[in-house]
């Protein structure tokens, strides 16, 4: 009889413990956010509006959209408004650039994040997104054929790397010359200004391109433009004429171009060829 009473007591205690611990856990529900837009791994131009939205359940008291590289500074881009159903959103008009994280010449995606909170908790799913250093006019001012169909269909290859004025040897950034010889972890410009053809021949020969020409050379792998720019050739026609190139635009992004001589006066004309 005593054993039975003891068991009954234990069951009652356990039930009470369960009630006071589990029930509040079930009733208290943090917001659950589903990331809807902008799309993952997108390059976003400045000077445009992008729709940022998410679905949120459990009555959020605040929904916001954030952007950053995972380090300070991290920016609140907008406070999202309730749309309908469980949808929250707002117009995102990015107007600044943050330097993406990098390590030994490898560059990483920054993040966008939808964040929601209520009295019971918070939830913050994220995607990989990158805000470009310029607007469309900036890029078309250098290459009139610069293509930008959407955030995921464009001529961008990699993120911009510069923050300060840069000197030869500056780490955690790179430029066109560095890229053309396979360097992505520091800036290369070992001359006080515009190099001579002889300077370029010596430099390129030391970096694995011993043959040069001051006229179009079949199967050229690196091209120098007379506005102090370099590009790698990425494809050739069957007779060796360069078709497309890829180059790092100063402190800006690594970008594809759809012809071998695409630049305006900013970078000038294809002048010297190396292989």
């Amino acid at each position, binding site marked *: 009889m005593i054993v039975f009473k003891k068991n009954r007591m234990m069951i009652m205690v356990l039930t009470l413990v369960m009630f006071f611990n589990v029930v509040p856990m079930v009733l208290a529900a943090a917001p659950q956010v589903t990331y809807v837009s902008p799309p993952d*791994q997108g390059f976003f131009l400045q000077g445009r509006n992008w729709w940022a939205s998410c679905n949120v359940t459990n009555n959020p008291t605040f929904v*916001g959209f*954030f952007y*950053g590289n*995972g*380090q*300070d500074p*991290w*920016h*609140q881009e907008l406070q999202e408004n309730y749309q309908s159903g469980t949808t929250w959103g707002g117009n995102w008009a990015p107007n600044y*650039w943050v330097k993406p994280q990098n390590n030994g010449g*490898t*560059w*990483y*995606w920054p993040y966008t*994040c939808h964040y929601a909170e209520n009295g019971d908790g*918070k939830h*913050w799913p994220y995607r*990989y997104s990158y805000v470009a*250093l*310029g607007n469309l006019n*900036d890029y078309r001012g*250098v290459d009139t054929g610069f293509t930008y169909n959407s955030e995921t269909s464009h001529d961008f*290859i*990699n*993120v911009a790397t510069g*923050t*300060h*004025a*840069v*000197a*030869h*040897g*500056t*780490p*955690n950034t790179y*430029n*066109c010359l560095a890229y053309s010889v396979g360097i*992505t972890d*520091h*800036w290369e*410009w070992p001359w*006080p*200004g515009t190099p001579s053809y002889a300077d370029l021949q010596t430099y390129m020969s030391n970096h694995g391109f011993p043959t040069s020409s001051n006229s179009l050379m*079949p*199967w050229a792998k690196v091209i120098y433009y007379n506005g102090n720019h*370099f590009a790698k*050739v*990425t*494809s*050739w026609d*069957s007779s*060796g004429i360069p*078709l497309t190139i*890829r180059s790092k635009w*100063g*402190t*800006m992004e*690594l970008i594809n171009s759809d012809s071998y001589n695409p630049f305006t006066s900013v970078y000038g004309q294809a002048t010297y060829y190396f*292989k």
Partner: protein
Amino acid sequence: MQNPKHYLVLLLVMLTFLTFTMGSNAFAIIPEPTRSSDVPADLIWDTDRGCYISQDFEKDLQKEEPQIPTFDYSVIIRLIEKIKLNNSLFTDINKSPLEKALAEYEAEYMKNPSFKAYYDPKDDHALTILTKLGVKVLPDMMERIQSNPEQAGVLMYAVQEITSVKREQFIDASNQGRKAWLNEMNAVMKKAPTTVHENALQLENNPTDQTAVNNIINLGIFAAPFVMDEVAKGNTQVLVCMDKIAVAHNILTDKNIQSTWTDWIKIHENDLKVLQNMVEDAQ
């Protein structure tokens, strides 16, 4: 075409045509022309685009795109909470004048990012944000050139502007380059007292001695405390050097060098102390 069957037939014909033409383009294979011996061995024929591409590029492409970072998910929430707490991360609390100027400089840069492959201080109007800080921040700048390689380049240009030390304009911000540059600056500071004294004596004997003038000018603003000593001793001939060094600093006017110089000393007493301390540290 009153009969709906005709519409259906027309639609089917159009669909067949579209499928055929689109399909034929999508799956078209462009064969490689007979490969000549001129084609470099590392190039492969792209049958979709009908051109040669580099094997290396195909391999490198993935490396060249931004990579997915591995990071602690909770970092984001810590950053968000920090924003919500401060309302802004751009707080100037506890920032030195140089740190504030660097942040301002960076913000200015972002308004006009550079496409150029090399930096020319003459093109950089924002550099004055740093140079206008003047002599008082020189020790902080020199320390940062040593400790912060990413900011070193622009700070080296700023120091050259502030000090007017005559050297080759080319700047190498690599570890080796920074070391060499700092050694060069230290050497200038080290020799400043003796160089000013010896050349001031030369000028006392021969006020038109251009070599003596140049020797002092090459020391830049580091000559100032020692020129002051020479003037205090009564050798005013040496002031002609300061007139030249100080042009960039708008220190002196051509009318009455001596009285302007005396005024400048009074105004820049603290700057002169900073320079004197830097020179003493270099000894």
